[in-house]
């Protein structure tokens, strides 16, 4: 352990001295102490895994000491709030995602932070589409089948989601609106609870992150009938998008991005953006994270805004309330 710290320190010095003298000069000595990456969800989950991959790479390649701090609760808003209230000195980062920055404002009137005013986006790190899946023995083979089944028996299809007001839930509501159909939402407490019901066919279909449905699809227990991204995903070249299934323009993704408290010096934001972008370009990281990302702060800011408007519309139309 000690040796690792020593090695890390040496590497840090080396990096600062030689690698990028210009930037190092701009923020002399950053970082000279451990950098905290707040993860607003518990360890082991999707957000946590993404965060640890990035933190691990920053630590091993640059010799920074990036400490992942899980601060879960209230759908991630506790962690975001803690980050918003932290010192804007570049030593607190937060792994934010769609629900905390773009959805929460429309759902929680008492949200303790302002996604736009309290944070400076650094960069997106991952964007994942959702997968629409059915049990392997389900008669539904495509989105057209799904819509036909819903039209034949309005309100009878059971739409399973990993929880109320998650991106998955909202995506299901969004599709209902776009396709002009009606089904019944059955919320679960996370993927693990929902899977048995979907696999066995007790629930008609399931909307959840690609990552969480992947193992079951691979094992032949679930069948993917569509992905919600604009383009097909590399892992599943045969699975069509919702858009190409007859609903052009339909897109719903969960993205993850690193932000810092507003007021963090521009030079540090630029440095962080540069280093994380480099990490994301590494082949072994690219294998795990990515999607087609634009990694600049400006693109991130625009995405927060456009997703906010999209989901606010869905929430209003579906009449979803949390208070």
């Amino acid at each position: 352990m000690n040796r690792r710290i020593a090695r890390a320190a040496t590497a840090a010095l080396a990096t600062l001295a030689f690698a990028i003298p210009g930037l190092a000069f701009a923020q002399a000595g950053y970082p000279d102490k451990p950098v905290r990456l707040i993860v607003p969800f518990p360890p082991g989950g999707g957000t946590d895994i993404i965060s640890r991959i990035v933190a691990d790479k920053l630590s091993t390649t640059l010799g920074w000491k990036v400490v992942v701090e899980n601060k879960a609760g209230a759908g991630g808003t506790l962690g975001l709030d803690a980050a918003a209230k932290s010192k804007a000195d570049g030593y607190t980062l937060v792994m934010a995602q769609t629900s905390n920055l773009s959805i929460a404002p429309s759902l929680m009137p008492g949200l303790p932070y302002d996604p736009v005013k309290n944070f400076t986006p650094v960069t997106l790190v991952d964007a994942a589409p959702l997968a629409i899946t059915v049990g392997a023995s389900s008669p539904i083979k495509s989105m057209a089948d799904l819509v036909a089944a819903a039209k034949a028996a309005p309100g009878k299809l059971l739409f399973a989601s990993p929880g109320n007001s998650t991106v998955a839930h909202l995506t299901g509501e969004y599709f209902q609106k776009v396709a002009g159909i009606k089904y019944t939402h059955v919320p679960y407490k996370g993927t693990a609870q929902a899977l048995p019901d979907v696999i066995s066919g007790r629930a008609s279909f399931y909307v959840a992150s690609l990552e969480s449905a992947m193992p079951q699809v691979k094992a032949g227990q679930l069948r993917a009938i569509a992905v919600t991204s604009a383009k097909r995903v590399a892992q599943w070249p045969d699975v069509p998008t919702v858009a190409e299934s007859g609903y052009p323009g339909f897109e719903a993704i969960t993205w993850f991005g690193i932000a810092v408290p507003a007021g963090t010096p521009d030079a540090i934001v630029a440095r962080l953006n540069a280093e994380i972008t480099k990490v994301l370009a590494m082949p072994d990281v690219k294998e795990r994270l990515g999607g087609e990302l634009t990694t600049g702060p400006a693109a991130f800011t625009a995405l927060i805004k456009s997703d906010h408007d999209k989901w606010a519309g869905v929430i209003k139309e579906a009449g979803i309330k949390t208070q």
Partner: protein
Amino acid sequence: MDVLSNLALGFGVALTLKNLAYCFLGVFLGTLIGVLPGIGPLVTIAMLLPITFGLDPVSSLIMLAGIFYGAQYGGSTTAILVNMPGEVSSAVTAIDGYQMARQGRAGPALATAAMASFVGGILSTLIVAFFGPLVGRWALEFGAAEYFSLMLMGLVFSAVLSHGDLVKALAMVVIGLLLGIVGTDVTSGLPRFSFGIPELLDGVGFTVVAVGLFAVSEIVLNLARNEKVEVFAKDVKNLMPTWADMKAAAMPTLRGTALGSFFGALPGITASVAAFSAYMLEKKLAKDPSRFGHGAIEGVAAPEAANNAAAQTHFIPTLTLGIPASAVMALMLGALTMQGIQPGPQVMTSKPELFWGLVASMFVGNVLLLVLNLPLVGLWARLTQVPYRWLFPAILVFACVGNFSLNNSAMDVYLCAAIGVLGYVFAKLDCQPAPLILGYVLGPMLEENLRRALLMSDGSFAVFVTRPISLAFLVVTALILLAMVLPGLRRRRELAVEEAAG
């Protein structure tokens, strides 16, 4: 036979010097954190997660699994010695274990707990090895209706759990139910009893309740008493259980193992439910149920066998279906994901050395735990002679650390303190905490599954009787109710007859 050759492969992996070392490290750490109230496998595994990056996947999984089931062994230690369950699942062990310790039988209680855990662990690992995929498929049959009926059976059964006043026990169950309701309702997405406090949106944590109710309030209670009174373990000479003890504990251990293996295989049911059920079953089967709560050895053996058995079969849905059965299992799948292994049903076939290596390591780990724990019995038993002024502050510190580190939230520490006060009041009112925990655990599951079952059946209650597994549970529930009510009626009638005659 296929399983045997697979097991041979597994032992080949598990018995390498490196993996043996990791297995030992895991179970040793598990025992240690199991002993400490508040610090559980969840926190420990979360903290160790970054370290496992550097290990190869099998070794890290073996170590993390060792921590998990090792904690089930350790959890009984403080439960028996100082009435503070080190793990939530050993809360029920405290009821009779602590009484045994007060009677100077701490040694036999600890040894019984270790041996029952061992039997439970080994037998249920056999189930994992031979019937894992089969059981996994069967667990898929459990939907909302089945869970509801099962929970209902548990709650009705829980009336048996109480010793003493039935009304007080029911009141405690209701308080537990209310406590369990706090937070965001899964079905509607609306917050309940959260009073606008964001930290309460996820409910009151399991560890928070258990540590507050047992450890914190017990410490306060002891401060109120005279310290001298409570040094009861002067006589720790006979450490091992007698032949009669062993005989009394044998069947409960086997029954506990069976119940534990069953519950553990169901995703979403915790080891504590298994332990509670095993205890209730023993009390129901006992010739003299009044011994329970006063140091019955069956009350130690059955739940300890059950919680360890559940800990092993918990791996079935996780490994064969890729469905994590609990937060700890989710964490382990997370560890695998970070290693670049996509967890799921295909792991068994694509990476047999991983699955069978882990299963084999569970055999090894349970043997290691027995070897580790039996000699420790003497040492632990002497712990009761440590003056409480040293012991209690230490326990309190660990409890705070454990509660804080779950969510890195100070709120959890305050909540735990508040529940500690509540626990003190309950103790003064002579109300047992165990029914509260049961209500707290089962209540929300009962409600959630009832509402989901009805949501999915479009409001028709028929779903509970048309699904065979659900119907079976309901029939058993009705029989239990009948069995409980009938003797009472008969007695009352006899009483009435006597009165009439007299």
